[in-house]
């Protein structure tokens, strides 16, 4: 692995990994937001041209379930890898300048990501049984919760990167 550092600096390497993590997070966020809106505000059949909002919420939610699970796991794994570097290179300098609430919000993000990981098996199962009415309300609740978790994690990660990145 160290051969990479013959070509790029350590900070460049971790910045690239962080950007990959962020892009995966954006993809997860987009998929989950589409799905959450589709269950919270389902589109009804209308006559005439579809508007942007109608198209946004008219997605077939079940088609996103596997992708969301894979994206969450891959984003989680890369985030977990970055977390080792964060603990030394980001958190300690931010502690020295007293960014305690930002750091607390980030530690909470790690908890939220782990709880989201624990939700995935049931989330996937409910979405793969979309015609079972017994799962309708729990499917909606789990999807909204997972979407809220994803938004929190994304925004906190963004704020922390603004406070101090790897570059």
């Amino acid at each position: 692995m160290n051969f990479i550092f013959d070509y790029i600096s350590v900070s460049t390497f971790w910045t690239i990994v962080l950007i990959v993590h962020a892009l995966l997070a954006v993809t997860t966020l987009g998929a989950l937001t589409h799905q959450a809106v589709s269950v919270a505000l389902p589109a009804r059949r209308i006559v005439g041209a579809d508007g942007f909002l109608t198209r946004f919420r008219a997605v077939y939610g079940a088609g996103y379930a596997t992708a969301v699970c894979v994206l969450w796991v891959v984003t989680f794994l890369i985030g977990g890898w970055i977390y080792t570097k964060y603990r030394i290179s980001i958190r300690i300098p931010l502690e020295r300048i007293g960014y305690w609430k930002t750091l607390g919000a980030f530690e909470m993000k790690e908890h939220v990501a782990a709880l989201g990981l624990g939700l995935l098996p049931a989330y996937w199962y409910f979405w793969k049984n979309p015609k079972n009415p017994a799962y309708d309300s729990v499917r909606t609740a789990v999807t909204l919760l997972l979407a809220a978790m994803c938004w929190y994690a994304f925004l906190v990660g963004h704020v922390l990167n603004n406070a101090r990145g790897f570059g």
Partner: protein
Amino acid sequence: MAVAGREADTQETQDKSARSLATSPAFGTFAIVFTIAAPIIYVASEVAGWPLFTYHPATNRIDFGWAAPRPNEGPAMYWYGWVATMLIGASLLGIVAAGFPRLRVRIPLFLIWLLPLLALPILAYGLMPFWTR
């Protein structure tokens, strides 16, 4: 408004490969029990200090269970250990429960979203030093 209908047709085809798992009562029981157990185990692991292992990022040292930071070796990280405890514990419970597929119809499904929600304030409370400093 044919967008949803067209996407549904395409997805119906793509979803066939996942149907055997998705329609399995045993997997359904596993998924529901895993998801209910995961936040309980995670919170218990965090509150009681039961990480499966402790990682010391400055030296790449891994200690089994909870270990304090070592002098001059930087901080200790417990989050990986909490996640490992959660995944292994919830998986074991889920596998055992999968042997009783009828169990899933007796479990209140609202626990699946309620328990992670209840876990959040407990975990936030554990981060109190960050909020009050």
